[in-house]
């Protein structure tokens, strides 16, 4: 089992982003995802910057993938998506079927991201035929569901033809909207958002009126209110999961990367207070087992 560092889903300034990737270059993570998947207005780093960081990381023996935007509405966003898909250097994580279309037409192999609705072996067969090399499972799927998909893939004779990746650690991307919730929370219209999400590097908390941590607003994205942490579930991933994704919210993710990598060897268990892992156990995502 290997580990990946997901792309930064929050909006960080250039300096913080560069610091993050310098640290990452010296870490033990095998796979890295880079780039903007949430909002096309975020331009602290441009495509060229991401490719440059990616090229540097490739030299450090990281396998690098460029993530693409999940919700594309404007023509300008589609034009950017084409540039991302056809960048010519890094492979791409498709987070919309528009990206799958562009990549498969250009015969470029791709990673099928968690924002694509892929729920069964037949979906995977269709995407395999179009160049999929790796599947990042939708975040709401349980171990049982993955096991059923895996059995189905075996029947179709495609089980070993792609890698499977799951979100192991981080705030979960749960929904995408036309509305920018962060701008709304500051009473700003979306077209005058002032890129205010940059003030919330770990998103903005949404609690119930009784104080339960429900969600995190991240621009047009709604994320889980608590961090999903599957460290104690690593043993149950054997044979099902090839890559475990760490999704960054701060530099703390590197400590967790170390803990996950140690847990894989030591089979140690830790207390999960304040985290969630329900999805993996086929219950409410926000719960903890």
């Amino acid at each position, binding site marked *: 089992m290997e580990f990946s560092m997901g792309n930064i889903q929050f909006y960080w300034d250039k300096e913080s982003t560069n610091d993050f990737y310098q640290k990452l270059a010296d870490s033990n993570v095998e796979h890295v995802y880079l780039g903007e998947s949430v909002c096309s207005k975020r331009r602290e780093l441009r495509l060229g910057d991401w490719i440059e960081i990616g090229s540097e990381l490739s030299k450090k023996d990281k396998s690098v993938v460029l993530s693409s935007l999940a*919700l594309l509405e404007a023509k300008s966003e589609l034009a950017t998506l084409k540039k991302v898909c056809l960048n010519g250097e890094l492979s791409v994580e498709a987070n919309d*079927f*528009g990206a799958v279309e562009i990549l498969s037409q250009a015969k470029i192999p791709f990673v099928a991201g968690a924002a694509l609705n892929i729920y069964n072996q*037949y979906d995977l067969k269709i995407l395999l035929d179009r160049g999929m090399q790796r599947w990042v499972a939708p975040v709401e799927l349980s171990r049982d569901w993955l096991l059923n998909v895996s059995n189905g893939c075996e029947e179709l004779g495609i089980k070993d033809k792609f890698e499977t990746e799951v979100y192991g650690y981080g705030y979960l991307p749960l929904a995408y909207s*036309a509305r920018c919730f962060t701008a709304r929370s500051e009473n700003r219209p979306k077209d005058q958002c002032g890129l205010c999400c940059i003030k919330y590097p770990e998103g903005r908390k*949404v609690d119930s009126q009784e104080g339960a941590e429900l969600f995190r607003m991240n621009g047009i994205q709604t994320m889980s209110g608590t961090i999903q942490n599957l460290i104690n579930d690593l043993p149950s991933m054997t044979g099902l999961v090839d890559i475990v994704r760490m999704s960054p919210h701060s530099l703390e993710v590197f400590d967790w990367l170390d803990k996950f990598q140690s847990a894989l060897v030591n089979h140690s268990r830790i207390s999960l207070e304040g985290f969630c892992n329900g999805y993996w156990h086929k219950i*409410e995502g926000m719960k903890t087992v």
Partner: protein
Amino acid sequence: MELLSPAGSLPALKAAVDEGADAIYLGLKNDTNARHFAGLNFTDKTMTQGVNYAHDKNRRVHVAVNTFAHPDRSQAWFDAVKKTHDIGADVLIASNIAVLEYAATHYPELELHLSVQAAATNVAAINFFNQFGVQRVVLPRVLSYQQVANLAQDTDIELEVFAFGSLCIMAEGRCYLSSYMTGESPNTVGACSPAKFVRWQETDQGLESRLNDVLIDRFGEGENAGYPTLCKGRFNVEGKISHVLEEPTSLNTLSLLPQLNNIGISALKIEGRQRSPAYTRQVTQTWRRAIDAMKKNPAEFQVQQEWDRCLSNLSEGSQTTLGAYERTWQ
């Protein structure tokens, strides 16, 4: 421009046909469709009766098989496609690529529409789904009018838009808030914020609505207490309590009718398979009148007060909005 009305039952279907819907959409009584609620939807028998009733009056029936096939029982989704074909429905509405491919290879003569649950918001995505022979795309409610107009220009495929009904603010089919809170989502069980998790409670602080024990909203006296769809609750952001994600309002595009007609939208969809036959009857009647008035004289079209009044009464929180359509920006 076709009027497409929702039917959660045979009486609703008949009401829609009687009031002039050009087509009616429905689902089977199982989790293969995104309105899998108790007491709703069609058995083989009622679907056959419904199709016959509609066909007798030259109307069309669309069947939604628009959830995502489970890996251990995908056959249920393929069977739903077969049933749609065998009973003689006119259109299959699907979102799952496995279901689309199955329909395209087994029943090539069955007309395919891409469900809103597939969240195709751009030309490249539409082109991807086009390979399955999709004839029409139902657009998610996240697009602005201008974005819909751009798409209409950029693709030859038929476009269907939501005209009226409950408003989903997320890109449909790409929202897991419901399973995060309850374990069940539209994609996996065909329901958002399922009724079995809802609890109402009178307290000293007001009437409380809960979903799986999470407080969604608290209503003062005289406040309109709506169903606790979780994205429409009042939550706390750094001490400020508000409808953080969305107010409980309904989409109403009556005022956009001439423009939607101008850009060549093929069909207007009314949301609400979960609503009563009376709802279907009133909404269909109002929209039929509006569309007919618009077609007769597009330049002079004006929304009649009685149409607006009727639709407001049928709306969530008695409020309506143009939703994302009125955005002038990205």
